[in-house]
């Protein structure tokens, strides 16, 4: 019995909260990037590629200048450049946004591999203690209590900023003029246009914001979550962000929940590894869980829709549901 509890506590412990936040933050920023364009009815699948390139740029700049601030700015700028490419291709040239996104992802992989070779003269991964990471914070308040200390210390910059950002984005989208116009552009572009709103500008703006957030996601990945660059280090996290967005119906708060679910399973998986299960299964679990959770969420949406449309339900009930 004691063995059972001590085993359980190896998996579920207070560190799990910290690990969950740690694992979910890169996905969160990618997810928020996805939410912003999705509200304008644009599915940005290039977030993965932007993240990867930005994480590379962040490491390089940090390494050569010793400043994480410059690195962060460079990463955001990288995201901006890619965003401009996507925006012009899709909005001006009417290219299929999916094709553009996948092309960006390919370019990012090839480009980072190439530049890693050319500039840092190495391949696979790059680590050096000269790389300056994003700052870490401790909430000194609890430094007396050992357990609480571990819970409230060692958070990277964006792990902290991510949470208020979710609420800020939510506020912006649902309570402000800017947000109302965004939602209308996404739901009925013609309606927005006839109301005098410049749909092209709005969509362009959202793609840019998406690029910037993806850039931050990349910078955090290589300078906050880790302190190095590895080829293909995003490893699908950009797409997890998109999945989280679908899970949350493009609502920032629910999207955040989706990211936390991913972070949670990722954190548990690492804990489970110490039990001797094959490592490949542990690596598999977050991806599998994301698919399952996403499928369950969509199935639920379908079920709710079916219920609200049903003629067998009395009118009072179903309009409450609507």
């Amino acid at each position, binding site marked *: 019995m004691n063995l059972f509890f001590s085993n359980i506590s190896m998996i579920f412990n207070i560190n799990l909260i910290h690990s969950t936040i740690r694992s979910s933050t890169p996905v969160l920023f990618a997810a928020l990037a996805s939410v912003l364009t999705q509200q304008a009815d644009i599915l940005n699948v290039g977030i993965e590629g932007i993240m990867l390139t930005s994480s590379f740029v962040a490491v390089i700049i940090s390494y050569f200048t010793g400043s994480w601030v410059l690195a962060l700015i460079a990463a955001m700028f990288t995201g901006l450049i890619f965003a401009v490419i996507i925006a012009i291709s899709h909005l001006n040239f009417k290219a299929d946004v999916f094709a553009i996104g996948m092309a960006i992802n390919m370019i990012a992989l090839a480009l980072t591999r190439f530049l890693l070779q050319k500039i840092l003269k190495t391949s696979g991964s790059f680590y050096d203690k000269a790389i300056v990471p994003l700052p870490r914070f401790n909430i000194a308040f609890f430094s007396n209590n050992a357990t609480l200390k571990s819970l409230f210390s060692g958070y990277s910059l964006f792990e902290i900023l991510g949470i208020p950002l979710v609420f800020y984005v939510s506020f*912006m989208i649902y*309570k*402000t*003029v*800017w947000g*109302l*116009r965004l*939602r*209308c552009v996404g*739901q*009925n572009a*013609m*309606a*927005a*246009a*006839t*109301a*005098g*709103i410049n749909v092209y500008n709005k969509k362009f703006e959202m793609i840019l914001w998406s690029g910037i957030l993806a850039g931050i996601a990349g910078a955090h990945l290589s300078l906050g979550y880790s302190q190095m660059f590895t080829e293909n280090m995003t490893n699908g996290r950009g797409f997890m962000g998109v999945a989280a967005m679908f899970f949350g119906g493009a609502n920032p708060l629910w999207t955040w929940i989706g990211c936390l679910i991913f972070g949670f399973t990722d954190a548990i998986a690492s804990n489970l590894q110490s039990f001797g299960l094959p490592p490949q299964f542990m690596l598999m679990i977050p991806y599998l869980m994301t698919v399952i959770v996403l499928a369950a969420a969509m199935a639920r949406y379908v079920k709710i829709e*079916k219920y609200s*449309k*049903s*003629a*067998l339900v009395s*009118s009072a009930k*179903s*309009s409450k549901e*609507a």
Partner: protein
Amino acid sequence: MNENKLVLMQGIYKSFENVHAVIDANFDLNQGEIHSVVGENGAGKSTLMKILYGIHKPDMGTIFVKNKMYHSLTPADAIKLNIGMVHQEFMLAKGVTVLENIILGNEPHKGQKINYSEAQRKISYYIDNYGLDIPLDKMTKDISIGEAQRTEIIKALYRGAQILILDEPTSVLTPQESEQLFKILEAMCKDGKSIVFISHKLNEVMQISNRITAMRQGKTLATVKTQDISIPELAKLMVGREVFLNIASSDHSSRSEVVLSVENIFVPGEKELSKIRNVSFAVYKGEILGVAGVDGNGQSELAEAIAGLRPVEKGKIVLNGVSIEKLPTLSRRKLGFAYIPEDRNSQGLNAGMTIKENLIGNVFYKPDFAKLGVLRENNIKLLAQKLVDRFDIRPPIIKANVSSLSGGNAQKVVIAREMNEDASLLLACQPTRGVDIGAIESIRKSILDAKRNGCSVLLISSDLEEILSLSDRILVMYEGKITGILDISEANEENLGLLMMGAPHV
């Protein structure tokens, strides 16, 4: 002479790809008048007004508003010039509230935040002043069509519209609701507003306008004072020839066998008011049963339930003695069911395929046209050619993509396909919507031909005139239920209109 005109449009040209939508059109508007623009579908009325509202830029021509000259406008410009437009397709975002749709682009705010109470206050002025009752806090996807239209009107007024353009507003209203609308419009005119009323319904236009401009094939033919012209003269202007729209239907059926029996069905609906609850009726052999009603009262749901595209939650549907409510669409078709869907673009035709491929949509799997799964191209070509000739589809190039056809010809493809096989029940939904007059005649004739050949027709149409001219019996739907069934001998616009509003049959 021009100084008194509120709006003056001169020499306007507009083309889309190869289609000349507007050719050398002229239009003017006086202060305080109701000026109607009439013409059949495709005459260019909407396009011309969309140019005034800034949705389209003219290729040539000038626009004067309050004596200032413009070569083109944007909607933002139009709004600044106090021009407002209520479109045929409602320009509303479904996932926000009615209030939010109204204030879009002109939101009262405190800093970044929207000031909802201020918005509420401002809008209430219009609701109270003109009697435009709407539920401000409801999600737009849940409101009725009448409410949506009133929302559109308030939207325009809220932005300070003094010139209001209405594009076919009565196409979604009952006769009684239309009367209400006219009262509102007259009140606005007394208040100093000027109105452009786009319509193809000559009765209404004669009733409410001060002046009428007739358009045909993109040109503005004449602008007259209403008192100076009569309906037949107006119709002749619109069409260019004498028009006979009342095709007298031949002998009325005798109630013999039942082809389709709908028994106590419950069908889910997009909106609360369009859900079908406990509806029953029968269609007899050799008759045309017309289903009248304002769009959105469950007709679409009923049609889809019979076609197999929407589940029947409870109840039975029996076709030629076989219960079909649980059968897939293909099985129903094999039992003698033919279907002309409501939306020819998204349901009736496949824009990604050729005319030939669209014509064989209901027969491609049959032994004549496929052997061991491989399509028999020769037979397919022969059939397509035969149908194109028989139904006069122009241009008759079966290899061409179906989207190259005009509205009327495209609809003929749907009809050709569905009438090809000997069906026992044809479900025709809005068969002449968006179709030019020449094609309307031939389509209505085809429906009568079907009846003559022994096929029963369930005709669903929001065009009362069409229902009255083709049906043997008429069934009226309101809020998902049947409010009455009348024989053609006893039906007229007035009692049908009342039933369409929900008044039970006396």
